[in-house]
């Protein structure tokens, strides 16, 4: 599903590389936590998977494709097989819940009939049945994140990338979001989630990958957030 071979990434005007010789493999259907302090390279790691950045050296394979050799115009096609969720939800404030989810299908040219079927289905799945016509501003943070997850999942991606999805939520709401992500993972979708949330990582007991100053320092099945905490 995802393979990093000796991947380093340096940004111009920064003397320390953001990632240093990271090698790892994530299998289909896995649930992986990506932990590490700010500036440890988590975001760079995710951006490389999304091909928002290219590796400076080494190879990144996602869904069986070498991203270095993927031409620019094929990138959108690759991204259709990924779903992304962020800390700040990134919903369109002037569209309803249903329109926000439908937007993800409209812009890749899905037929209208298919959209009309898929949107209520996925909203039911994330527990927002009946709130189709609400505006994002009328929803709680947890509900907004559910909309974002619905949008990420509506195209049934093989891989879901979540960048601190619970970062803006209280602990109780976060648990609900994690249950949802777990459910999505059980449908066979690989989930990679960057987080700072110690409780969640410790409770879920999934694979934990820890980065520190750009290096892979821990890769542990059924891990916890960190030894020292």
């Amino acid at each position, binding site marked *: 599903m995802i393979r990093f071979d000796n991947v380093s990434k340096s940004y111009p005007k920064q003397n320390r590389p953001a990632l240093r010789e990271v090698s790892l493999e994530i299998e289909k259907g896995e649930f992986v936590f990506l932990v590490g302090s700010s500036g440890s390279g988590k975001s760079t790691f995710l951006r490389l998977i999304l091909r928002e950045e290219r590796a400076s050296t080494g190879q990144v394979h996602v869904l069986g494709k070498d991203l270095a050799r993927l031409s620019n115009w094929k990138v959108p096609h690759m*991204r259709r097989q990924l779903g992304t969720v962020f800390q700040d939800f990134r919903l369109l404030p002037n569209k309803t819940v249903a329109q926000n989810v439908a937007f993800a299908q409209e812009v890749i040219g899905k037929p209208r009939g298919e959209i009309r079927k898929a949107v209520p289905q996925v909203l039911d799945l994330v527990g927002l049945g009946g709130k189709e016509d609400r505006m994002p501003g009328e929803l709680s943070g947890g509900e907004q994140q559910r909309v974002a997850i619905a949008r990420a999942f509506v195209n049934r991606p093989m891989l879901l990338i979540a960048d601190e999805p619970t970062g803006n939520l209280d602990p109780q709401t976060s648990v609900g979001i994690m249950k949802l992500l777990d459910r999505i993972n059980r449908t066979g979708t690989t989930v990679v989630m960057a987080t700072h949330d110690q409780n969640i990582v410790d409770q879920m007991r999934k694979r934990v990958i820890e980065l520190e100053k750009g290096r892979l320092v821990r890769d542990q099945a059924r891990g916890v957030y960190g030894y020292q905490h």
Partner: protein
Amino acid sequence: MRAQFVLSEIGVGLRRNLTMTFAVIVSVALSLALFGGALLMREQVNTMKDYWYDKVNVSIYLCTKADATNGDKCAKGAVTAEQKKQIEADLKKLSIVENVYYESAEEAFGRYQEQYGDTAIASVITPDQMPESFRVKLKDPEKYKVVATAFEGRDGIESVQDQRNILETLFNMMRSVNYAAVALMLLMLVIALMLIINTVRVSAFSRRRETGIMRLVGASSFYIQMPFIMEAAFSGLIGGAFACVLLVAGRYLLVDHGLNLAEQMPLVNFIGWDVVLAQLPLVIVIGLLMPSVAAFIALRKYLKV
């Protein structure tokens, strides 16, 4: 791609940027009107050239009785029938001469009356004051000098005139106006392009949320850029339409009504409506393409896809 979705996006974008859109439309309209005007001016010069160069090349004016008394060139008196025959024969012998027409004083008078019939001077002119002349058509109009040196100063000849000289002055003036129009057009074009680029930048910035999401869910760059390009194309199309209106109105007000040059200058045959209308599609197409290309180039910079 679903047209309704794209169209609604364009509508939103244009309304959000109403003042900017208006500025783009005006600058595109002005630059295209100048462009069309310059094209029409060139057509006008060409039409006049074709018309006049075909008719006149060199005129050899013969001495009249009046010339004999007040000019030194015709000191030997008015041209005689003998001299006329000789001149015509000599002209026809020249290999560069294609044709020689003789214009009698009466014909010259008739033509004069026709052109300046209403003016005060026309009423005091009499046929015998008009010079007889030979109108010489050359195979190569540039060879005027040969005729001039051969006949200038000969008995019975008042003057040899290359009528192109008079026309050239006029044409040169028109050409200068044309260059000025083109220069102004280029300036307006640069302004229009900068406005379009800025509009696209503002537009891309105000919709960065949407485009960011589109990018993440894997919309193709064509799909993401389309609304912006269509927006620019739409403004350009409106601008082009305005330019067409300006051109048609310009021809109408200058030639047919208003200044009414068609009646004021009967000697000039103005370009017809067909020529004006023939330019309009070109103006529209450029109005459509130029902003689209500008927007496309601007997007590469301001909209990372």
